[in-house]
């Protein structure tokens, strides 16, 4: 599958890789350069492979209240929330953001590319309330303009004032590229916006943002940027076998809600206590931790790395790992990197600040 920006990536000389069936750019100039451009200035990502599922009608709120872990009814127009679709066992089917376009009648869910079909089917099969559910992923493109200079680029391009938006809110803006949904969200910690628009307009917007100084960035930098902030990636750090509580994402679960799918399992987990927690690791020795590396503490296995890389900002190895709940922050353990033990310290992410000065 290809996004509407595929031809642009090829023109820019991107290295293209297969990402869950999508032909996506992994880098253009190089991951490190792109990563640092986002932290210190601005970068632009094609996230059009992600899914947009619309839930509409007067049944939308009661349905979403039961389907999602967040409290939907109090959401004002223009609000964004991060939350989950859980299975009955509390496992994470997907993590997503929900956009309140019109309270009580129109919501958009932005979901992970590789889960779009699964999520859509799951939503449909659990739709007791009879809300209208529509997958508009094909006609919707997503361009993420990230970094401290993102706001000034948007102002110059459209006279749009991103600074007036609070984090996790959005606004519509009518432009020469049609109606943009500009959201003050992102997956990099560097600030900026995510822009949803009609697929047909995506190449022109993409090119203009680059002309205005945003550096084209691939999935490689997207991964190192999110990992430096400790943001989980579904499929790596969270999946149907892990719960939001184990992943330390309690803030995105409104336990006070009367009912949502998976709530009972989470309550049970709270009662019985967690056996493992997703935690951050910073290597104290040279080396690069990778997914699957075993963590050893006091001579025995204490966990496993779910995401690892080198931090382009720190120049050291960083990772997320599920560790036994007895492991505490600032504990030191060994990460087995190709059968070599490397010392690492348990640290709460983010591992770096989201922006760095030029």
């Amino acid at each position, binding site marked *: 599958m290809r996004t509407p920006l595929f031809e642009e990536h090829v023109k820019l000389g991107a*290295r293209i890789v297969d990402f869950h069936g999508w032909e996506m750019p*992994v*880098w253009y100039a*190089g*991951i*490190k*350069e792109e990563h640092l451009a986002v932290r210190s200035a601005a970068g632009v990502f094609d996230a059009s492979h992600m899914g947009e599922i619309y839930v509409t009608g007067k049944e939308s709120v009661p349905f979403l209240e039961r389907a999602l872990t967040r409290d939907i009814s109090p959401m004002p127009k223009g609000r964004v929330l991060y939350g989950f679709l859980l299975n009955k066992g509390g496992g994470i089917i997907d993590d997503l953001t929900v956009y309140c376009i019109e309270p009580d009648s129109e919501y958009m869910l932005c979901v992970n590319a590789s889960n779009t079909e699964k999520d859509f089917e799951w939503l449909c099969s659990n739709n007791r309330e009879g809300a209208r559910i529509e997958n508009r992923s094909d006609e919707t493109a997503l361009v993420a303009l990230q970094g401290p200079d993102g706001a000034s680029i948007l102002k110059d391009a459209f006279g749009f004032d991103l600074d007036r938006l609070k984090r996790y809110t959005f606004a519509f803006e009518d432009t020469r590229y049609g109606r943009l949904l500009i959201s003050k969200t992102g997956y990099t910690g560097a600030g900026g916006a995510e822009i949803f628009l009609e697929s047909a307009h995506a190449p022109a917007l993409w090119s203009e943002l680059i002309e205005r100084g945003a550096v084209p960035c691939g999935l*490689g930098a997207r991964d*190192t940027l999110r990992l430096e902030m400790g943001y989980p990636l579904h499929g790596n750090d969270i999946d149907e076998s892990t719960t939001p509580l184990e992943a330390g994402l309690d803030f995105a679960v409104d336990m006070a809600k009367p009912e949502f799918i998976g709530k009972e399992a989470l309550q049970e987990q709270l009662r019985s206590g967690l056996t493992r927690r997703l935690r951050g690791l910073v290597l104290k020795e*040279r*080396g*690069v931790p*990778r997914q699957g590396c075993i963590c050893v503490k006091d001579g025995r296995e204490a966990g496993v790395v779910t995401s690892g*890389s*080198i931090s*382009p900002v720190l120049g050291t190895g960083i990772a997320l790992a599920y560790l036994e709940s007895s492991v505490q922050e600032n504990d030191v353990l060994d990460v087995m990197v*190709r059968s070599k033990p490397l010392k690492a310290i348990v640290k709460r992410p983010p591992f770096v600040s989201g922006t760095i000065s030029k």
Partner: protein
Amino acid sequence: MKIPDELHYTEDHEWGKAEDGMLRVGITDYAQNELGDIVFVDLFPKGTSVAKGDPIGTVESVKAVSDVFAPVDGEIAEVNDSLEDKPELVNQDPYEKGWMVVLKMDDPSQVNKLMDSQAYEEYLEAEAK
């Protein structure tokens, strides 16, 4: 894509430069380009004996880990320590500053079994198909 004439090449994309019974070894321009930003180079220590095809170290980019193999039998006589702090030299200058080890060859005639630049170029073209 640079493929210097005077070097010898392997199918795993190492290059070797023969110098008086010694073979200076690195990875090719093609290999560094395929790997992307190299962030870590881990080489076996001086004095390690290796057979042709044995690993002599690993190179890691942000996204991938790749072994580097000995093009010939020999002993590691020198290691490029500067790659410890500057692994990006492999990207920037794969045939000069980005060299990895110097092998003392057990049998210097083994280099004749490696590909020359023309054969390597054809090999890359065939692989691309």
